[in-house]
């Protein structure tokens, strides 16, 4: 593991070099908000941005993505047969991704990379990406990453961790991919390991201490699924929800999608597009029957999936990294931290030890 000092005056030159070897992406301000955008040669990512409005999941998993193309023209030999579409999977690098958003890919991978099936679109894009993270010194008040299996200096899912140190960045190369990235930029001022590690550790402690909202997840696994599903608080949780789907679209760990054919004249494409468990159509049967026909069902599905089903299915932590986007952007202030506490505490009152 290497530590590299990047003088800020060498930042732009390095990025310029990198743009020959990578397609670069980073936070860019668009009107009032930041989002991840392509950084062309000569442009710079805006690293002041704390958290983009949409998560960077779209760089690996676009909101709309062509899967196949086909012709409906019966005079062609290949009519009505699905054909692969060439994808650009040349190396890309995401600069200034926050540790929570990078960790989110690790959680989502469990869905797209299974022993039985591998999603080629997601995996190829993920494998072609280098994640250059930026540690958070001043987390938002709505962030709760430290109790959501993550943290402001969390390294899991990153190839490089950048720590802002005023006139320079301290870069910690975490993987071979990360080392390759740093050397492609010509950033090679290696610094002493011990000192750098100590410096980062101290900054990390300071940042973690600033995160004051905490959630408890310790009991989620042991509570019975059906009991939790039938808990009386769901009506109350869902009461004000307008099923707008914002929470799922902004979330870095939501992955649901739809598949549709789009025709234009005698040809077309099979595409996949993000979908949301908040929409009634998501589960509507052709017969008109809908197993999740009320918003209570749908709100419950979202929280149960993230905080219970995922935990049980993969025997892991929760499917949330505590980025706080859904908390900040829900128009009616539904707060996953509050719901998580209700779920985690459910039945705790009656539980008494035999001894």
């Amino acid at each position, binding site marked *: 593991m290497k530590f590299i000092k990047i003088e800020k005056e060498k930042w732009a030159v390095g990025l310029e070099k990198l743009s020959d070897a990578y397609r670069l992406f980073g936070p860019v301000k668009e009107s009032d908000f930041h989002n991840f955008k392509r950084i062309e040669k000569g442009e710079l990512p805006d690293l002041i941005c704390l958290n983009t409005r949409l998560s960077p999941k779209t760089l690996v998993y676009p909101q709309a993505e062509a899967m196949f193309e086909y012709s409906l023209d019966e005079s062609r030999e290949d009519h009505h047969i699905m054909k692969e579409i060439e994808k650009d999977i040349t190396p890309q690098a995401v600069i200034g991704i926050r540790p929570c958003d990078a960790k989110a890919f690790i959680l989502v991978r469990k869905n797209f990379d299974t022993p039985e099936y*591998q999603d*080629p679109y997601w995996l190829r894009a993920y494998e072609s990406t280098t994640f250059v993270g930026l540690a958070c010194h001043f987390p938002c008040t709505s962030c709760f990453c430290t109790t959501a299996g993550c943290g402001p200096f969390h390294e899991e899912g990153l190839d490089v961790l950048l720590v802002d140190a005023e006139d320079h960045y301290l870069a910690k190369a975490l993987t071979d991919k990360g080392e390759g990235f740093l050397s492609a930029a010509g950033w090679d001022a290696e610094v002493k390991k011990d000192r750098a590690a100590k410096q980062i550790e101290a900054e990390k402690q300071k940042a973690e201490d600033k995160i004051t909202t905490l959630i408890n997840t310790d009991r989620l696994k042991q509570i019975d*699924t059906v009991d939790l599903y039938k808990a009386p608080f769901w009506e109350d949780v869902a009461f004000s929800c307008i099923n707008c789907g914002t929470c799922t679209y902004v979330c870095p760990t939501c992955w649901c999608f739809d598949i549709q054919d789009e025709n234009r004249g005698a040809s*077309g494409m099979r595409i996949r597009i993000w*979908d949301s468990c908040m929409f009634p159509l998501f*589960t509507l*049967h*052709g017969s008109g029957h809908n197993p999740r026909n009320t918003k209570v069902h749908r709100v419950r599905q979202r929280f149960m999936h993230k905080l219970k089903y995922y935990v049980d299915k993969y025997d892991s932590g929760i499917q949330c990294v505590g980025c706080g986007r859904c908390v900040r952007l829900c128009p009616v202030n539904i707060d996953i931290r509050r719901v998580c506490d209700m779920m985690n505490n459910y039945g705790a009152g009656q539980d008494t030890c035999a001894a």
Partner: protein
Amino acid sequence: MTFYETVNVEYSIFKGASVQNPYLPYPVRIDGIVVESEDKNLKTFKFVFLNPEDEAKFAYKSGQFAELSVTGKGEIPIGIASSPTEKGFVMFTVNKVGLVSSYLHAMKVGDIMGIRGPFGNWFPWEQMEGKNIVIIGGGFAFTTLRSSIIYMLDPANRSKFKDINVIYGARAPGMLLYRDELVKWEKRDDINMHITVDGTDDPNWKYNTGFVPTITEQKAPVADDNTYAIVCGPPIMIKFTQPVLDKLGYSHDKIIMSLENRMKCGIGMCGRCNIGKEFVCKDGPVFTLEQLNKTPREY
């Protein structure tokens, strides 16, 4: 490379590893269409693979389903109605419901489309060997049950199972699927058929009249440790059949059901078909009632 080989491109995602794209359908041609029901809303489609190697790749078991890919319209999950013992084609019976199924109903023999699969688990054939089997089906959910019956009656398999009872009901005689086969099975002595209709004014109707739960109560064998019940049908039939099976003493680990949640991917990724932590497409569609009791039962 032939044309069709180039269609089935394999990916190399990681160095060395090569992965088949699970979303890519096998190209097929419609080889036969049979109108099954008098209201013409049910048609059986026989498909042959354009690329003969694909038939072997599509090796399936009774109870599994596939995604029928109607190019330009979309995909629908449909239970496989043919049996693995039938070679050279695959068969599906499709109810005309919405966008894709209606378009498929208007297609003709010779038309090209695609099939993805097989997906999901199957009826627990290994576990059911040496046991009595009671099949209870209603309406057009009889498709994978047809597959199962053909499979069990195959000379190579019949001796693996003890008594086979089939209770199958539809609204009216003209709504029963696979009528020629039903008549043939009716005449055999190695399978007990209990065909029923909700009602009929046909004076020549020689089988039962009454709802499936009622006929089940009259005809199904009393439960023992060696008897499995496979139940497939509309929600209302399932709802009223369960108390009957309880009364007959069937334990919930011997009651096997197949679910039909809305699906897209068929491989546990698109996120819509779950009941609790189980994806119906991948962890199901076949579950025992005992398993379902532990889920939120959102189906």
